[in-house]
């Protein structure tokens, strides 16, 4: 039986390349008896889903950090100077 440490690594690797048959079998067998690694797998999927979504989320809802008034003014001035 593979250790939790090895399973946790394979769970991450499975997000970057397809696992081999042996690796998949190892993860499956381990997950049947280990709740911790099952939760870890779900958390990795959650982190992926959130990371994929954040750019669009901020774009669509126009929330998140904003340019400071100072920076906006500086950028505006530099555009004005360069419009030909």
């Amino acid at each position, binding site marked *: 039986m593979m250790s939790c440490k090895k399973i946790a690594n394979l769970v991450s690797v499975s997000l970057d390349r397809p696992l081999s048959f042996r690796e998949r079998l190892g993860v499956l067998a381990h997950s049947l008896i280990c709740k*911790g690694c099952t939760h870890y797998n779900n958390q990795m999927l*959650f*982190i992926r889903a959130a990371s*994929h979504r954040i750019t669009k989320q901020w774009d669509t809802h*126009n929330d998140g950090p904003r340019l*400071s008034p100072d920076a*906006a003014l500086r950028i505006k001035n530099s555009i004005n100077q360069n419009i030909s």
Partner: protein
Amino acid sequence: MSQLSDPNTWLDQHGDALFRYALLRVRNTTLAEDMVQETLLAALKARVDYAGASSERTWLTGILNHKVIDHFRLTHREQPLAEDLPDDYGISDELFDERGHWMNTPSTWSNPDQAFEQQKFWETLAECVARLPPRLAELFILREVNGLDTEEICKVLDISTTNNAWVMLSRARMQLRQCLEVKWFGR
């Protein structure tokens, strides 16, 4: 086919969105502001070549994204990623006992879907990404936020093997998980 609007309106229309895009990736306010400025100035020069195939926002974001990738490439050339990994799996030994069992077994995160509905969650996520060691953060961002595959990332960040990239990604995700667990899920 779309047409460009008056460049004087670009900052009001897209400034905040471009800033957020840059800040999430470069994790430094001044640098992100400079990148927005450089992007708009580059767009000013390139506007005669705008073919109208994509929206103005998409076109500007594309220019900005090039600048972000160039920045990553440059900083990695100056400060290469340490690829000598202290343990087999890239996951801190502190998290596991000598037999490879969890020291603190992960438990379920309550209502993760509700997190997506809350503006504060996205700021926490960005903060946790920014707290990763810089090189791991950039690796993670290229993979999970920009969606590049590992081979492309190895070229940008000058990582010698895809295997090393997988190990480092595993470490980045593990650290990000720890951060979210403390800062969002309150453990």
